[in-house]
């Protein structure tokens, strides 16, 4: 039996969502833009899913734009708002140093095309200090984008306070909620944001399906142009089965979030305390709270994360270091780097992220397997290599 503790990378598809998708793949093949029966059938499936997504976010269905995932939602929010506001002279964007690459690299792309981009510093707590935004913001700012929960360390950002600061200066506020949707109860009005991104596969839905919530009245220029789908903000015939999966997963997540949160937090806390007490030279990265309940990020000194991941996988335990696309590189996590941790500490950081199938037995397995692996790897002195 393998233990999967990498739910922030992706989650298994919920069986109910899988059944709904399979049924849609076979039976709901119409084009949702068509007038006839088949089109209406597809449109109805999309509408039902949209309502479920809206419920998950305490939003209105008319404000949900389907996308091909979280990255696309972030791109649509940032590029769409930046370009819509370009004629107003607001050519300044603000984000934080611990954002996902979907946000950071989109900002960098816009910086190359003439936008001014400010990246807010973050300290070792992994939480953006609102004072940093107050110092950076000016009347030329079009958009501030700060993530809700960080994917690597799980810290939750003070979104409502940050959004209020942005609004005082007439700027829009976007949050990437890919890592909080399904883990925390979300209410877009309470968060006070203008746009919010989610991705289905982080809450037991399929890959390649996501959504951007856009508050009514916020103008966006589409960056995928074509037909009039999604109120002309995201052209292209809808991927009905994937979006049905998104809707089903959203409904399930909404019904479970308040029970799952405390359960996962208990597992996570026991694992974290167990590792910190049983293995010397280990530290939790980032603040203990506020965090999403399923995530902990721990640095193990004198060991490279790469070798730990392999050792754990061979022991049947799946975890990751930083973001999933970094395998094969020893690039330190940009998140831990932005938080000001020294190079050595960023190299040996691993992330455990719990999910629906995890139990106390999984925590026991890790607490049993990890110490001997660390001990063996440390005896190799691979870090710093032999001279």
């Amino acid at each position: 039996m393998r233990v999967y503790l990498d739910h922030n990378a992706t989650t298994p598809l919920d069986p109910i969502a899988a059944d709904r998708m399979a049924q849609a793949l076979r039976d709901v093949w119409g084009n949702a833009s068509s007038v006839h029966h088949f089109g209406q059938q597809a449109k109805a499936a999309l509408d039902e899913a949209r309502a479920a997504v809206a419920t998950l976010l305490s939003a209105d269905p008319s404000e949900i734009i389907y996308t091909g995932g979280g990255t696309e939602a972030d791109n649509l929010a940032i590029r769409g708002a930046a370009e819509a506001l370009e004629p107003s002279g607001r050519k300044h964007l603000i984000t934080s140093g611990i954002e996902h690459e979907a946000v950071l690299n989109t900002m960098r792309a816009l910086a190359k095309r003439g936008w001014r981009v400010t990246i807010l510093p973050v300290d070792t707590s992994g939480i953006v200090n609102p004072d940093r935004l107050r110092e950076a913001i000016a009347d030329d700012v079009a958009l501030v984008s700060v993530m809700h929960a960080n994917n690597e360390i799980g810290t939750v950002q003070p979104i409502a306070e940050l959004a209020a600061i942005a609004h005082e200066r007439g700027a829009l506020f976007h949050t990437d909620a890919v890592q909080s949707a399904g883990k925390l109860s979300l209410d877009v009005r309470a968060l006070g944001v203008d746009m919010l991104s989610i991705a289905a596969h982080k809450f037991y839905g399929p890959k390649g399906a996501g959504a951007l919530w856009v508050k009514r009245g916020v103008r966006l220029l589409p960056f995928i142009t074509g037909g009039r789908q999604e109120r002309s903000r995201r052209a292209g015939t809808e991927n009905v089965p994937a979006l049905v999966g998104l809707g089903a997963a959203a409904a399930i997540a909404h019904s479970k979030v308040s029970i799952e949160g405390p359960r996962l937090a208990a597992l996570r806390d026991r694992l974290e305390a167990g590792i910190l007490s049983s293995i010397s030279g280990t530290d939790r990265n980032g603040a203990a709270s506020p965090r999403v309940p399923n995530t902990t990020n721990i640095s193990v000194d004198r060991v490279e994360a790469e070798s730990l991941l392999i050792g754990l996988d061979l022991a049947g335990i799946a975890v990751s270091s930083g973001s999933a696309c970094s395998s094969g590189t020893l690039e330190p996590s940009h998140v831990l780097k932005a938080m000001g941790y020294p190079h050595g500490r960023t190299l040996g950081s691993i992330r455990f992220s719990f999910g629906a199938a995890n139990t106390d037995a999984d925590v026991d397995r890790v607490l049993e397997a990890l110490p001997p692996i660390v001990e063996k790897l440390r005896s190799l002195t691979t870090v710093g290599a032999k001279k």
Partner: protein
Amino acid sequence: MSGGVDSSVAAALLAEEGHDVIGVSMQLYPSTPRDEAPGLVVGRSGQATTAVEKWGTCCTIDDLYDARRVAATIGIPHYIVNFESQFGEHVISHFVREYVSGRTPIPCSHCNSDLKFAELLDRAKAYDAEQLATGHYARIVRDDQGRYHLRRGADTSKDQTYFLFSLTQEQLARAAFPVGHLDKDRVRAHAKRLKLHVTEKPDSQEICFVPDGDYAAFVERTAPDATRPGTVVNAEGHVLGTHGGVHRFTIGQRKGLALSTTEPLYVLEIKPDAAQVVVGSRESLGRTRLTASQVNWICGGAPTDWLRVSAQIRHRHAAAPARIRLKADTAGGVRLQPDWTAELEFDAPQTAITPGQAVVFYDADEVLGGGWID
């Protein structure tokens, strides 16, 4: 697993025999250096002043893709271990330093002894792997007394023992060469039988981190300050022309001298301190004597008295009869096993004995040991 047919078949055969196999590929150098990344900076002295750091890649190179697909086909896990900094330190900087010093290095040997059968073997031990298997054409035989002998691969045209002479008993005890007893055609036949998509993949020819084969350009890019032009002279010291740097030459080389002489001239000697390349006729390339350092003796007591061997002085050289005598090298103070030097005398002159290359001693097909030509 390099993504080539040999290591792919090695892994597949072990898996087929029922071993619990873990596929590992080494990421050794960046396939796409980032424009802002610092290169390997080698100063005029040839000393690396900055190690390779932060050349990021995301496993996009074709060979890693091939290795991954093979691992999936045979149903074993596959991991990429990043040894870029170690490779830069042990292999690339040494390679550059040797060329700048007028020597002709063999990075593959250093990769074997300092990375594969050192760092990677350590890693394998940490994962409780009993052995480290590679796709080398070489054979390991354990004798009654528990000592390990290294023998040429059964396919003598593919034999790779020349690159493995520096392995120690401890390393050989942990090594396995599952294709060493096969010839290349059989290896490809196995690949086909096992439905590995790399069946028809051509053999790699060049040094992996210099895919275009232009070593001189690589050295110039990596150590721009360490190369300098000089003169081409004959044995009497008369200047015949100029050259762009001693790193562009190897012993026995004829091309690239840019001389207009009636008889063809060959590089006889390289004098890095004077930036001189000494040339002469083909006949004067022959030598019978050499000395080697950092000698490794694989099995049993090293001979301090003259011993008859066959000696091979480069990868594509037919081993020739010679006698050798070893002595402990105490010049550096403390003697580090197996840091010995060897004196060698060939029975007949050999063409182009080249400093920086290895000399490997054989008794029939058994590798007795070897060292680096001074």
